[in-house]
């Protein structure tokens, strides 16, 4: 019993004094009386934001001194981060950090966390020695984070079987829809163009969906986040940066071409999604079009630390 108690005590001590630890930060919350709606949070093009906390990290450290490098992670998007990794990259010869990697879970924006959950990560570090004739030596501390994220967009679209435009007065118009402001994710749907294709058995609704990476990071396959952050083999994987798109029209799954896509930063990518079964209704009607992409994302930020000579006469 005594041995068990000692083991528990040691475990607690290790946990408390671990070189890297995560600390929750209280962010201001809205009052209950003015709770925003879900749509309010499912906006923007940000996901995980990383900040090098300059006010908590010394800019200059002396040779051999121990210091804390602090980074702040904040999920500014709508999706929760349930699978996430982070790693600190630096010149190991000059900055020694006993534990430089870890996992993270951060809630996205919601009525209780309107700015998204934030955590601070502290790396207990030690500065190395620099050349004798140098007065200082700059070292970069870069934090990379890889996480699985989700983009979900729902738009009400008009399904109009009269693609030849014979009918004059219509309840809705099948028009190009430009979507600005994002969906609370770096990967966003920017435009939807509805079409109607004529199959052997009848008209089928189809949509040109435009997708873009509006964030600063790299889109990767959700199953390869560990590769992206470098823990696993760095050899080339064919599907490394390919993600799948899922689309549903009134809960009916659409077939998308291509189904696996590589999303580029700052460039729109066009996907054609088509309903496989023809519609039976003859009049135009509106229906919800749901688009979902589950993807991995790699983002990073850096801070600069300068190691100075211990004694400058």
């Amino acid at each position, binding site marked *: 019993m005594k041995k068990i108690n000692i083991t528990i005590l040691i475990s607690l001590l290790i946990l408390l004094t671990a070189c890297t630890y995560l600390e929750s930060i209280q962010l201001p919350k809205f009052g209950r009386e003015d709770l925003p709606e879900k749509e309010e949070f499912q906006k923007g093009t940000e996901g995980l934001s990383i900040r090098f906390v300059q006010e908590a990290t010394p800019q200059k450290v002396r040779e051999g001194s121990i210091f804390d490098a602090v980074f702040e992670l904040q999920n500014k998007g709508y999706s929760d981060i349930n699978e996430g990794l982070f790693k600190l990259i630096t010149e190991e010869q000059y900055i020694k950090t006993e534990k430089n990697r870890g996992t993270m879970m951060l809630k996205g924006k919601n009525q209780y966390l309107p700015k998204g959950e934030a955590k601070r990560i502290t790396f207990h570090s030690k500065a190395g020695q620099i050349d004798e004739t140098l007065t200082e030596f700059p070292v970069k501390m870069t934090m990379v984070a890889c996480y699985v994220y989700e983009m979900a967009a729902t738009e009400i679209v008009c399904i109009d079987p009269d693609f030849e435009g014979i009918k004059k007065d219509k309840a809705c118009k099948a028009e190009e829809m430009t979507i600005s402001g994002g969906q609370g994710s770096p990967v966003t749907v920017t435009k939807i163009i509805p079409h109607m294709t004529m199959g052997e058995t009848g008209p089928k609704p189809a949509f040109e969906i435009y997708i873009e990476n509006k964030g600063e990071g790299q889109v990767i396959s959700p199953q390869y986040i560990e590769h992206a952050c470098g823990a696993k083999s*760095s050899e080339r994987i064919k599907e490394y940066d390919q993600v799948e798109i899922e689309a549903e029209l009134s809960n009916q799954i659409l077939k998308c071409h291509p189904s696996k896509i590589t999303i580029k930063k700052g460039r729109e990518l066009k996907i054609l999604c088509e309903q496989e079964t023809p519609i039976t209704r003859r009049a135009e009607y509106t229906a919800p079009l749901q688009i979902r992409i589950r993807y991995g994302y790699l983002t990073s930020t850096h801070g600069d630390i300068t190691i100075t000579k211990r004694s400058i006469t």
Partner: protein
Amino acid sequence: MADPIIFAFIAIGIAVIILLAVLIKQYPAFAELLKDIFGTPISWIIIGTTGIIILLSIIFSFPLLQTILFLAIAIAVVSFLVFLGKIEAYKNPKFWIGFAIVAGIIGIIVLTILFKEIVGTGLFIILGVVLFAALIVVLAKTGVLKKMVISPFFWITAIPLAAIIILPLALGFPMIETTIIITSAVALSAVIVYLAKKRLLGKSFPFVLFAIMAVAAIYFIPKIFGFPMLETGLIILGALALAALIIYLWAKVPQSRSLVGWIIAAIVMIAIPVLYFKLPAIPIVIAVAGAFIIYWFISLFKRRATVRYIVKKSWMKWIVFIIILAAATGVFWYTRMMTAGIALIGGFIVLGLGTFFIILLSFPGGREFLGKFMPGFIKFILLGIGFIAGFWIISNIRPPPIVTFLFLVIYPILFPIVMGKKCGIPLLILSILAIVLLISISDVRTENVVADVKSGFKDIGHWFELQYEKIKRGYERAEAGLTGEYFEGEVQEAAEKKLGVYLEEFRSVATTYTEGEPIILYAKIRAETLTDKPITVKVDCSMDNKPADETIPYSTFTVDKFAIENIDCKFFAEDKTKYPAGNYRAKFTAGFDFTTNAFIKAYFMNQEKIRDFKLQNIEPTEHFGFEKRPKAVYSAGPIMIGMDLGEMPLGIRETTSYGPTIGVTIENMWNGKIKKLKNITIMTPGEIKQNNINGKVEPTNCEGCERGSKECVCNYDLSNLGGIKDQNIIMLRVYTTIIDPETLIGAAPVSFKSFRISTDYDYAIEEEMGIKIRTEAPASKKILGGLV
């Protein structure tokens, strides 16, 4: 932006604007004054340019040097176009033919000097320029040129656009910054042109210029040169007040026009030898007064005519100026080389010659002769001075080699054009640019310039030698840069410490000795190092290559961290045959061993990951926040170490074996000599093994160059490498092999490494001075003391 001081500046700026608004509203005369002072195009160019530089470099952290350079290019282009518009010569095909010939000749000269390739490349360039001129002629004949050239819109859009494309692509300048700077400069120029056209600008530019230069000087001189702020401010304000008085007298009191010039000349001729060179005051005053009396007496009869000619013909003022300058030069030069008496005799001779010319002016025949000959001669002298000045400045500011090269080509073409009629604006802008560039770089190089200027005043001949050496080094640097092998480093400011060994003072107890008298020279040496390893300094005094008989307190000493040593050198001359009467050159040399370290950052990535990033339109350098082309940083001292590893990130495959080649440039930055490069130690990451230098020099020994090691450290003995003796620029290439690519890439998207170099070398600084030994003078000739 977060810096509170910036907000403080903004708040002060707003307060000043409000105050000005109130003053303008309340006092119309104040508004008139402001309009008069700030209402000229040039004042707006200066104010706007300074504002843009401050805004971009301080608030948005743009690189200062490049910001100034871009603005200068943009403004120079606009100025050049304004100039073309004024002379209207561009409409004439002959102008372009002349341009082609001049550019061709200068092209030959530059190429001959740089590459010794007069036949091949030189002719090719000439052919290109002639074809260009021919094209212009055809365009002019067909009327196309008129349409193209006359439209300012074409030039104001086409040239900046070309600069925005060429500078980032060809020279690697940052695209966004380049675009912002050039666009703002063009916009500023456009506003000024508009204001000028609307006649909203006044004429009192000199006052604005004076004020800005005075404020800049009061701010920068103490900051850069360590002068006391109060004294500097008083001196500059006093000088300005004096200048204002002279200008006032010159403008309002006609009688003072010749007198004022002579008073200034007299003050200069007396003050500099007495205050700076510590020569006896009374003989100098007597000598100068004598010179003026002689001049006054000779010119008495023809004085009225002489003054009239001096005032009437502007170039004649230059004669007077050159005569005074030559006389002063003679005094300074000979003062250091010979006795004061002989120097003054030299001064008298030069003054006599000047007086002769002035008398010659009084006669119609002489006037005609000089009228034909002198304007061209003076213009030639001015062109020569300006020509040298530009090269001197470019060799000191050390821009990237390609910029130096472009300057070397463009500057000689621009200068004769700029010296033409009504073209003061481009010249002024170039001058301001040169001054701003010179004062904006506060490092060892600027200190060297200051040291050069100081030594130049001590010994003008020696100064010209130094400048020649610097210009030569500028050519060497441009030549090295064009081969793609010159890599520049950034000096690490050692907390404002001057590291190395400096000769602060080298003097003689007397400039003239009597035969048999012991000759005593003394020097003050300042030495400082940051390392625990002391510097060993060996001093050596000689007179016409004969070593000193005694060095007090020692000829060799070690300096631990910091020391100032006073060294006396004695030459015993009891034996009169050893140092008989005559002129001697005394030389003081201080040799010391020193170490300079340098490092450069490297960023390695898996080649496949780089490809993935690029495919997604993501630039890895921007994503991970590192430089595309890192620069080496080196410790302060006599040499610069530049390093290059190519463009980052360095892509590595798991099967990669060839490593990055390290380009190294070692350049002598001081005016002394690298006596010996003793040892070079190169430190690479443990996963990178070093092979050799330049394919010839194998490492003498290596440590830690195997798998699992942190760092691979190799020493090289460069004595086996030919062609480096007495070189100011040494270029090396270090070849490497990657022995463990997987570890080098590491378990992260990118890995950060440093490559380091440590160089041990012997360096020597030296200074010379003239010593006169005379035979013992008879007692009756000792009236003038040490003068004769």
